[in-house]
């Protein structure tokens, strides 16, 4: 199979079967990219995971771009990224249309009465999982507390808070 077609196909497949966020997508990408297709070595994949943590945007998009570039250059990275988002784009568009239409339906409302509280738990879980390795000393706890108070109580701009925290990190930990 043509390498571009193959990259697109593999990443469409990854996009279609990746439930549960970046941390659930990475093992799938590892399986296809390192084990099945030998596109990256195991240590290159470890580097990729580390890079994806320190770059903007979703981890899965970062991974698709990186693998695509390494295997097929610029167009490889475009195709992998498009392949990854295509199933999500189509499914979410359909679900949004259907949901808006049937939002008042009794069965949909019953299901949502269970799903909404679970969603709150899922986002809280994301916060817990991000916290692993985030607190290295009392200074990082102070940053967390300061950002929380500024954002929750004083509705401060989150981007400004992230920039300030990054500058603080640069000053404190360099």
């Amino acid at each position, binding site marked *: 199979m043509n390498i571009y077609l193959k990259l697109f196909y593999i990443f469409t497949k990854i996009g279609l079967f990746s*439930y549960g966020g970046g941390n659930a997508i990475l093992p799938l990408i590892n399986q296809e990219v390192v084990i099945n297709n030998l596109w990256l070595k195991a240590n290159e994949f470890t580097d990729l995971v580390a890079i994806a943590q320190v770059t903007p945007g979703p981890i899965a998009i970062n991974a698709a771009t990186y693998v695509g570039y390494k295997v097929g250059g610029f167009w490889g990275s475009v195709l992998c990224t498009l392949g990854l988002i295509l199933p999500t784009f189509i499914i979410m568009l359909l679900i949004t249309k259907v*949901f808006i239409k049937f939002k008042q339906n009794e069965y949909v409302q019953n299901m949502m009465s269970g799903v909404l509280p679970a969603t709150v738990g899922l986002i809280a879980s*994301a916060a*817990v999982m991000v916290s692993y390795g985030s607190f290295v000393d009392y200074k990082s706890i102070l940053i*967390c507390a300061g950002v929380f108070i500024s954002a929750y109580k004083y509705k401060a701009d989150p*981007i400004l*808070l992230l920039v300030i925290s990054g500058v603080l990190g640069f000053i404190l930990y360099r």
Partner: protein
Amino acid sequence: MNILVDLFVTFLKISTFTVGGGPAMLPLIEKYAVYNKKWISKEEFVDMVALSQSIPGPIAVDAAVYIGYKTAGIAGSIVAVFGAVLSGFLALLIIAVYFTNINQNKNVEAVFMGMRPAVVALLAVPVLSMWKHSKINKKTIAIPIVTVILVAFFNVNAVYIIIASALGGLIYGLLHKRGKLL
């Protein structure tokens, strides 16, 4: 400003400052799309997060599709997704071409040591506001608590949580209707 340009620019800005994975995007979306731009209501924000957890793929793309579609139809969802993906794409392209060792750079690591605790704090904000708008009551308060235990501590995949809670809600509703439960 043209709504399509506004959607693109807003999602580009949000995704540029999304560090540490998709959910880190939610506090930014809540601030810009819900409070500042008023593209969706607080209730719709909770619905959006629930839907995006129910289907495969990055939460960033789901959120962009939902808000883009609500605001400006299919064209809106396309430009929002493009904005949500572009900065991650460009960043990795530049790194793949020029700086493969960026994760070992001391200065970059220091900046991220400052940003990571901030991301934890920012993620707590939508959890608290969603708690208020997801109609959690005495009967459902156990659901988010059990979810955190299963997902954060036992690595249970989110899709099982969504299926179980949807079925639970459905069955409860049916029994309730037949008068077997109060």
